[in-house]
């Protein structure tokens, strides 16, 4: 059952060194505030899971929080590379990073299967791709009805799932609107779930089929206004596309990166 907690307490209570952690949000509602708190608390050896690592994992990887990354597209959307990710993979800075690489379809299916309590996801995927050659977790099953061979991958059920959403009510039920990504799936498939929200309200005022996470599938609800910035929160603020472009120059250079983190993460209150 959800407890209202400070961001500091939510991260320190649920995120342990060595955990498998997913901070999800497909372009929209990326939980930057929570990621920054993980950096401030100097978590180590995390296995980070995310379809699109985005700037948030670029920052966490650059600060040495991760020993492993499970992902399906590691760029700065519309801009170019994630330079901290590339520096880790190409030059082992700040240390080496193991990767398990999938396609979006596979990871989306793996989250879905995780929410569904299954050990595997089955999809018509990876046909002709060389990704199965470098990812030993891509296997297959044979349909007992048609004989078709289909891709099978392990479902994703992380230790801690972290998402950002628009609203929680005072019971801790959470409403997500707009591009909902895989947020429901990561929370339902996680051992522990932390949700940061723009605001806490008396009534979610939701549509009957809205994406609502009941309080009893969440461990911690944290009020974190603008907690998705520089990504965005539909109904609250827009994506700072300019910052995404600026990040390219910041992240290209190790010193510039460290200075930015120092000024914008380490010396900022959570």
């Amino acid at each position, binding site marked *: 059952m959800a407890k209202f907690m400070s961001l500091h307490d939510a991260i320190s209570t649920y995120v342990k060194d060595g955990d498998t952690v997913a901070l999800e949000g497909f372009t*929209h509602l990326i939980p930057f505030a929570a990621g920054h708190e993980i950096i401030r608390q100097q978590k180590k050896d995390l296995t980070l899971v995310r379809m699109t690592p985005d700037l948030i994992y670029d920052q966490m990887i650059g600060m040495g929080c991760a020993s492993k990354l499970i992902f*399906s597209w590691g760029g700065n959307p519309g801009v170019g590379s994630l330079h901290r990710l590339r520096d880790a993979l190409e030059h082992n800075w700040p240390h080496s990073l193991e990767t398990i690489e999938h396609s979006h379809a596979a990871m989306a299916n793996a989250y879905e299967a995780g929410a569904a309590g299954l050990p595997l996801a089955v999809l018509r995927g990876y046909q002709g791709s060389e990704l199965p050659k470098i990812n030993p977790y891509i296997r297959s099953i044979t349909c007992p009805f048609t004989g078709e061979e289909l891709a099978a991958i392990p479902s994703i059920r992380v230790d801690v799932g972290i998402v950002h959403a628009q609203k929680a009510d005072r019971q801790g039920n959470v409403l997500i609107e707009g591009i909902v990504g895989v947020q429901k799936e990561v929370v339902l498939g996680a051992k522990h779930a932390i949700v940061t929200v723009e605001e806490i309200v008396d009534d979610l005022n939701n549509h009957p089929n809205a994406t609502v996470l009941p309080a009893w599938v969440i461990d911690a609800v944290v009020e974190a206004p603008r907690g998705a910035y520089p990504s965005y929160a539909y109904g609250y603020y827009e994506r700072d596309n300019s910052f995404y472009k600026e990040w390219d120059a910041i992240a290209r250079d190790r010193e510039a990166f460290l200075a930015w983190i120092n000024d914008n993460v380490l010396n900022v209150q959570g």
Partner: protein
Amino acid sequence: MTATYTPSEMMTVTAARSLPNGAVCFVGIGLPSEAANLARLTHAPDVVLIYESGTIQTKPNVLPLSIGDGELCETALTTVSVPEMFRYWLQGGKVDVGFLGAAQVDRFGNLNTTVIGPYDAPKTRLPGGGGAPEIATSSKEVFITLKHSKRTFVDNPDFVTSVGYGRDGKAREKYKVIGKGPTRVITDLCIMAPEEGTNELIVTSIHPGVSREQIIEATGWAIRFADSVAETAEPSEQELSILRELKARTAAFHAASGA
């Protein structure tokens, strides 16, 4: 009177013209998104644009920077979860055209967006597959658009992220359930299509003012030309002005965003 235009505009307009009105198009970010939206604003008002962020039948007023900008959701008919997008809409066979860019393409339309150099010791780590591996196989057909150069049109790429016709040109024979594959590659120099029988990309149309030598020089393998090669029609004034307005709106919007 012919209008003045850049090779890049020629590419976008030509790519846009490929999309039939009413087609359901799964749109990759960047060049495909620009072309698909230009199609929607010109000859194909009923083209249905789908982005992997879950936005269905979206009509953005400005081009999105990312695949999940708010504009895509706000102008969509509806927005579904990402698992639903890949399961029901893409794998479910609802997509007529998958429109992809790539870092590299080879003679059989295979795409590399993963790595230059060895996978475990990359010279350049590229972003990865994203939606492309299954867009390439689950769409009824695939259009590819990218700038023409020896860095992008390569022989024997280090990695095949998303299959065209496989390294031997025959990969699609192995799978029972799969789309036709790349039927068209649009660059800033020409249009290519797979040759019947071999599935090797050959030039079928050359953009005005471009020479065969330029194309040969910009291609990393011994590119061949169709028996009958057309000259691509030039962009119209209207197409150019709509494209330029779209790009101007987009630049103004993104410069001001995030406030």
